[in-house]
């Protein structure tokens, strides 16, 4: 019994990490209708940038505080210099660019950092845990990760729903042509969107590196979990994305509890089941 409760707790906490993977993807798709195939690799890039900063002697917190805005600027530049040029009625060119970007990032990381598996050294936090009584305990770091996932969503939602800029984001998402008639420069909105998404990638990369080993090749699998979380949650809702992440996390830990070999598979199976039962996800946006 206790084992099961522990499994569920772990699943929810793992879901926090997956929803961090997925939030940036959800924002990009929600506002630009762009599928970013390099998303997983950009998360891994965030982890490596933090690793490089700590290797250069920066304390972990400082490395984190530098890499998050750095990734924002990389995203902004990527969108304005590259992806905005491929905008149009055809969705294929931007998709192909992100596919190419995925390969470039993976190989660039491989070239720079080698194929060795790495881990961010988070000191005593690594093994710190919070006892819950009756023998149960949750790791402090996974708990912080879930808190960060919720914090990111609260922050993004308050920007999107409470500020004039946020209204411009949602208007652009609804009808990009009419948004321009309101004085909204859709290209700069898109650049900001990519910047925000990559800043969230950096946060996700930090928790990825703090929780598990990583190497340049693991991006595509993160992308897959992120996709599943976004689709399960329903397009257009960040809270849905959190729920989607938790569904994938729970399915994986429950699968692993039954048989360790089933971990990854059961995440995908849960995704397929949700697709069959609710093709538009758990919390689809009311109008679309």
């Amino acid at each position: 019994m206790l084992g099961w409760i522990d499994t569920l707790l772990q699943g929810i906490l793992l879901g926090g990490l997956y929803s961090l993977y997925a939030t940036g993807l959800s924002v990009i798709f929600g506002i630009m209708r762009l599928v970013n195939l390099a998303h997983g690799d950009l998360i891994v890039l965030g982890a490596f940038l933090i690793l490089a900063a700590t290797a250069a002697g920066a304390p972990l917190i400082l490395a984190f505080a530098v890499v998050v805005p750095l990734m924002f600027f990389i995203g902004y530049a990527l969108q304005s210099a590259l992806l905005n040029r491929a905008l149009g009625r055809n969705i294929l060119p931007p998709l192909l660019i992100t596919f190419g970007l995925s390969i470039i990032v993976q190989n660039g990381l491989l070239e720079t950092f080698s194929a060795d598996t790495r881990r961010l050294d988070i000191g005593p936090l690594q093994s710190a845990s919070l006892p819950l009584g009756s023998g149960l305990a949750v790791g402090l770091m996974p708990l912080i990760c879930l808190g960060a996932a919720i914090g990111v969503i609260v922050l993004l939602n308050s920007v999107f729903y409470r500020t004039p800029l946020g209204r411009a984001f949602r208007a652009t998402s609804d009808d990009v042509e009419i948004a321009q008639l309101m004085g909204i420069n859709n290209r700069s909105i898109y650049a900001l969107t990519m910047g925000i998404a990559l800043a969230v990638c950096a946060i996700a990369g930090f928790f990825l590196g703090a929780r598990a080993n990583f190497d340049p090749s693991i991006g595509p699998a993160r992308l897959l979990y992120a996709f599943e979380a976004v689709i399960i949650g329903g397009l257009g809702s960040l809270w849905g994305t959190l729920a989607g992440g938790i569904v994938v996390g729970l399915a994986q830990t429950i699968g692993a509890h039954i048989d360790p070999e089933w971990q990854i598979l059961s995440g995908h199976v849960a995704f397929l089941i949700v697709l069959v039962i609710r093709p538009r996800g758990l919390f689809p946006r009311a109008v679309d």
Partner: protein
Amino acid sequence: MAVLETRELTAFYGDFQALFDITFTLDEGETVAVIGANGAGKSTFLKAIAGLLPRPAAAVRLDGRDIGTLPAYEIVKLGVALVPEGRRLFSSLSVEENLLVGAYGRRRGGAWSLATVYQLFPMLRERRHSPSMALSGGQQQMVAIGRALMSNPRILLCDELSLGLAPIVIRDIYAALADIKARGTSVVLVEQDLAHAMAVADRAYCFMEGRVSLTGRPQELTRDAIHAAYFGL
């Protein structure tokens, strides 16, 4: 002097040419109707002025200045606002948010604010927190007009205000348009409803197959001349 002028304005959808050398003027405070059958290029004409379609650089002038190279989001800041065909409200935004987005690119002072728009359309004040798609067609048209007004335009481009609306609602919309005109706003009115268009317009242009087929003051245009210009009969 003309505030808005087009000279040999052309527009294309891919290889298809939708407008041929349209020459057009709008004077300060004037209301000009653009009439014509479906597919005559009326909406295309408004979109080309507003910057939503590529057009020759020197084909559109505002106060004698070429604005043909400016993107749509810059043109609205110069005081040209479009009420699009089919209203096109932002579906995930409430009524009030739609109006507020209209003020996003506002660079000009002027009379219009949430308060004055609600004064013009009191019905919207009661529904201001409703999702925009929950409104009736007429109310949505009011939001679309109010949204355009929020940028404090000097020139209001209106595309098919009466489309799909009940006659009584159309009357209200045109009453509001008279108020807007009274404040000195110049209006370009694309309209299928000939009677309404001719009643408010100072001048009219009739389009046929992407060309101007007739122009003049409503009282000078005979029914037969308009019919001929409409259908090329």
